[in-house]
């Protein structure tokens, strides 16, 4: 098994560091330049994307290689809705994006989880994802290969007062709040009864089946939640980047959350978030050197997969465990 059955806990350190990271994200516009704020917004969306993906990958061990299809479904559906019905409240266009992602992940999960497992599940989801990528790139209402451009940042209408998210860094703060809420919800699912049943299925599918648990139903539920949350991340990104192209449905975009999970450590809830932040740092640091970004990211990834099987968090936990043992001696 790739994942340690019982991962060592960092204790009080986890909420402390998570709070510090959240504070850093929330105060970023006050001390960082504009380019970095934009990047941080993208990273926040990618954290939600990767945490949603890991609900499936980390807890069931199944690799969905078509996750970008749900991300794109959410982004395109919400942007299309906001454009077709300009007066519609922002929350409804976001909800529409999530609903389309939910419908799509329900269908794909129903089909893919019925027959395929392991490498076949990965390739089947890859094929279905590429199918959606091709359809988006050839659909005129979705802008074909050029995508949708000039997506407006919305105005929130609270009745008594209105908040125009197009001014300043307001949409960024909305992203911080939304990412925190969605991550909290995912944390609750991961540590709740569904998460624990899935973890049990991953270790002993036969034994869990004997206990009367419908294994496939639970995997389908996890796939549905994972796909819906991914679509929500996509719907949140569209007004931030203000342009979406079919590239967000491409298989290489589906590879991103897998990289984040393995880089940070897929056995822990916060692993993918760590992976997304480290990955963005690597890419940002090498952005001006042709070919260097791929060499550094590829090299780092290879090193982590070959030498640090638990990812960054798994390795840190092993090191801290060793330190604690030596301290006690």
């Amino acid at each position, binding site marked *: 098994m790739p994942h340690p059955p019982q991962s060592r806990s960092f204790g009080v350190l986890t909420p402390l560091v998570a709070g510090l990271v959240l504070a850093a994200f929330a105060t970023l516009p006050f001390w960082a330049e504009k380019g970095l704020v934009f990047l941080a917004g993208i990273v926040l969306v990618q954290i939600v994307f990767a945490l949603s993906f890991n609900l499936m990958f980390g807890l069931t061990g199944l*690799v969905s290689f078509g996750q970008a299809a749900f991300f794109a479904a959410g982004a395109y559906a919400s942007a299309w809705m906001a454009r077709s019905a300009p007066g519609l409240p922002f929350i409804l266009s976001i909800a529409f994006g999530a609903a389309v992602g939910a419908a799509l992940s329900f269908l794909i999960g129903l089909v893919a989880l019925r027959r395929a497992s392991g490498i076949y599940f990965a390739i089947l989801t890859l094929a279905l994802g590429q199918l959606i990528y091709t359809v988006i790139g*050839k659909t005129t209402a979705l802008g074909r290969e050029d995508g949708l451009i000039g997506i407006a940042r919305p105005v929130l209408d609270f009745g008594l007062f209105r908040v125009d998210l197009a001014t300043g860094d307001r949409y960024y703060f909305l992203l911080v709040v939304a990412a925190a809420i969605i991550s909290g919800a995912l944390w609750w699912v991961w540590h709740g009864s569904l998460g624990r049943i899935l973890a049990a299925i991953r270790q002993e599918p036969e034994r869990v089946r004997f206990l009367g648990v419908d294994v496939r139903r639970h995997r389908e539920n996890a796939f549905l939640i994972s796909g819906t949350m991914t679509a929500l991340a996509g719907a949140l990104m569209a007004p931030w980047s203000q342009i979406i192209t079919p590239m967000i449905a491409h298989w290489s975009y589906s590879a991103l959350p897998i990289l984040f999970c393995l880089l940070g450590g897929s056995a822990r809830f916060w692993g993918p978030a760590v992976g997304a932040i480290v990955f963005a740092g690597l890419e940002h640091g090498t952005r001006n050197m*042709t070919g260097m970004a791929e060499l550094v990211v590829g090299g780092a990834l290879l090193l982590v997969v070959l030498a640090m099987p638990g990812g960054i968090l798994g390795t840190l936990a092993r090191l801290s465990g060793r330190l604690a043992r030596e301290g006690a001696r």
Partner: protein
Amino acid sequence: MLSEVLPTALNGLVWAMSVFLVASGLTLIFGILHILNFSHGGFVMIGAYLAFTVTNRVPGTASVAAFLGIAVACAAAVGAMGLVVDRVVFRRLKGVDDSYSLVATYALLLLCEGAVKSGWGGNFLSMSPPEGLGGALFVGDLFVPSYALFVIAAGVAVYLALDLWLHRTASGRILKSVALDPWMASLLGINVTAIFTVAVVAGFALAGLAGGLLAPNQSLSPALGGTYIIQAFGVIIVGGIGNVRGAFLAAVLLGLVDAFGTVYVPEFPGIFFFVAVAVIILFRPQGLLSGIR
């Protein structure tokens, strides 16, 4: 009627043989090592760039013989890279989860792309077919580029050579026995680690050969590696992963499905490949032929 069907069938077969050239090495490595090598397309791309550079730098390489010679040299060079990759990466991936080897080899694909970008730049490059393959033939009313016929012939030749090697020679049979049961093979005195290395080097050499042979067919760019690998994945999964005969059959089947689909539904070119892959995996998850053959 026939004049409409034949060009489409020809297009489908050219696509099929191009993808089979890429998929053959991929399925061979999976059959023996059970590693789905994401970087395979990256090494095909490196083979194509090497062929491009040698053809442009060295004078007098415009003939068909020189073209074939360069493709074989690319196969040797990429095969040597396979030796290094086997030592450094693949040996550490034994027994790990599929997703780990998928990501480790995806990292290798990124390294290939980075190497191509820093070596050749990110611009599109192109090379023309050698003299003698640049023209076209007329079969009745049918216009057939000679290079298209060459690609089909090359695909069939590589398939026949691989099939003969695996089924009719002693070393091929040893390879198959290791694929079936490495532990039993080692008890019979077969050096299993050496056989693994042979399979990896052969698979990488096939990637280099595919790159050299297919280089004139497309614009070379660092995205080439990722383009071919997805099609090759579909072909080897549909064929029965690890099965060379299955990959050949699947390439022909999917190539024809996609070519005819694109003619009848021109709004969504390329969509039928993915539809066919998804449907076949659903109803026959083990592929058309299973096991190593």
